[in-house]
């Protein structure tokens, strides 16, 4: 089965007035149709940049230096404006992080859903309105609120509208950029429930971007841990959560309170997140790594396959001894 989405060695930098930040430094992931992949990492690891690169929607300051983003084998970065517009919202759609600012304040909620239907599925306004009502019902919003404005909705409800708009054209790939971060826990659970349900109904493949490991374990089959613009560990959720190999992943999992173990202190990772403007040499994590070896400081580690469903980028496993 040929890959739905493949990102190969993607390098992206942001040129701002202050300095140039290396957001992505040779990132690679693959996604099969129907598969759901979790992308996890701290803030500034390049998660949102990845999402925007897939849709070739980088802001004015973002520049793609090298690498490819293949969707159905076709490189998105080389697509014409026409093709891009047909793909976005139709084959790939995205749900944004902050529901308060991702909905156009001066247009009704219905309009923001119907515009996708009218443009991609060429529906008549009447027909589009009906379909929009169904979509709202499906995400748990009463249909009569179609003509209301975003200002009249709470954060959670707005995120549901974003989701409704995202799944309007039954996209093959749904990118969710930290959909629940701005919401409180109870609403989070409802949103996740909703996404799980939608995934089963429409078989859309999901790229879930979050820093919340709980969400990953519930929703995704595979997980890719990102640090300073690279994927440092990739594998199935069971495998990675059971045997976290990369010191950073161990640190992440160690930071989680575990009901069974009665730990007094949670392990935390010393030091701060790698600064995109001046990344350390060699392995980006070495300043914060207890098992830091000589070669870590100079050379960039290469992906090592621990087994067929688990890969890590760390010299500790160079000899293939797979602790």
């Amino acid at each position, binding site marked *: 089965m040929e890959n739905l989405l493949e990102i190969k060695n993607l390098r992206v930098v942001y040129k*701002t*007035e*202050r300095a140039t930040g290396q957001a992505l430094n040779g990132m690679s992931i693959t996604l099969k149709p129907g598969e759901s992949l979790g992308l996890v990492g701290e803030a500034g690891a390049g998660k949102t940049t990845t999402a925007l690169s897939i849709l070739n929607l980088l*802001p*004015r*300051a973002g520049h793609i230096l090298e690498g490819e983003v293949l969707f159905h084998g076709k490189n998105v970065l080389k697509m014409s404006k026409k093709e891009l517009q047909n793909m976005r919202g139709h084959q790939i759609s995205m749900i944004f992080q902050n529901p308060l600012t991702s909905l156009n304040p001066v247009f009704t909620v219905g309009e923001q859903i119907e515009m996708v239907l009218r443009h991609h599925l060429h529906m008549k306004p009447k027909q589009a309105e009906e379909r929009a009502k169904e979509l709202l019902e499906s995400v748990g919003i009463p249909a009569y609120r179609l003509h209301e404005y975003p200002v009249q909705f709470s954060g959670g409800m707005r995120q549901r509208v974003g989701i409704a708009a995202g799944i309007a054209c039954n996209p093959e790939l749904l990118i969710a950029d930290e959909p629940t971060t701005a919401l409180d826990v109870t609403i989070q659970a409802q949103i996740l429930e909703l996404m799980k349900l939608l995934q089963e109904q429409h078989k859309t493949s999901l790229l879930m971007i979050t820093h919340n490991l709980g969400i990953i374990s519930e929703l995704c089959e595979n997980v890719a841990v990102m640090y300073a613009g690279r994927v440092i560990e990739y594998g199935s959720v069971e495998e990675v959560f059971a045997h976290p190999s990369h010191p950073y992943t161990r640190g992440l999992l160690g930071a989680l309170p575990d009901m069974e173990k009665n730990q007094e202190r949670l392990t935390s990772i010393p030091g701060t997140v790698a600064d995109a403007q001046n990344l350390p040499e060699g392995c980006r994590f070495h300043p914060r790594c207890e098992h830091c070896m000589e070669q870590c400081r100079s050379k960039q580690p290469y992906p090592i396959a621990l087994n067929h469903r688990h890969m890590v980028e760390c010299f500790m496993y160079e000899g293939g001894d797979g602790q």
Partner: protein
Amino acid sequence: MDKKIILRRIRHSRFMIVGAVVLVFILALSLLAPVVCQFDPEASSIAERLLPPEWLSHGMAGHILGTDELGRDVFTRLLYGARISIMIAVAVCCSAAVLGTALGLTAGYFGKKVDMVIMRAMEVIQAIPDIVLAICVLSLLGPSTLNLIIVLLIGRTPMFCRLARNNTLVYRNAEFVKASRSMGAGRAHIIFTQILPNITTPLIVQLSQAFGSNIMIESSLSFLGLGIQQPQPSWGNMIAAGRKFLATDPWVCFAPGVALMLIVLAFNFLGDGLRDVLDPKRT
């Protein structure tokens, strides 16, 4: 925003540099007027009436931009006129900005009754056209420069007040204001340390544009005979006087017109550059 960023932006902002250069040039010329030109701006000599511009044929000694209908040197009057016009503009704009902001802040922050009263007062002032205000006040108090400043001040305050009030409303119920209020900050503290810094940017931009528009309004009032009285030169009354000779001797009118355009352009360039430099959201 730290100084370093602002300084670098200033260096890169073309508008600001051009505006500043032209402004400094005009200010320098008008301040050095006694040195630069040998003619008395108010002394007329009938023999040399309506001479065409000699440009630099006699160096600085000749009538560089020709003479007006009473034989007074246009270039000299231009420079002395610049002094008066700029002085009035600066006086009016700064005082209007301070008064307007104060009113705007109180209206915006205290809201309801205070806001209603101040805003209605501003509407009343704006409902009365400038010229009516000018004619009545000037003919009552006499057309001196101070009275002109008072009239222009009254006319310009509503603009600043409205701007300050709208911005204050935006910030009044912003989170950080609520936070500081919850920490027991006094009203004055909130207004001056919290709200005022946030609304200074639009006010500064408005101030720079007000300079330009104020000079234009002063020239319109002088055109109607209400602004600065002859023999004192001002660009407005020079254009008004020169209009009769537009077809036969156009330079009498073009010189102050171009000068007026240049200085207002300079102020606008400066204002525009300032807007970009102080724009917090600029990446």
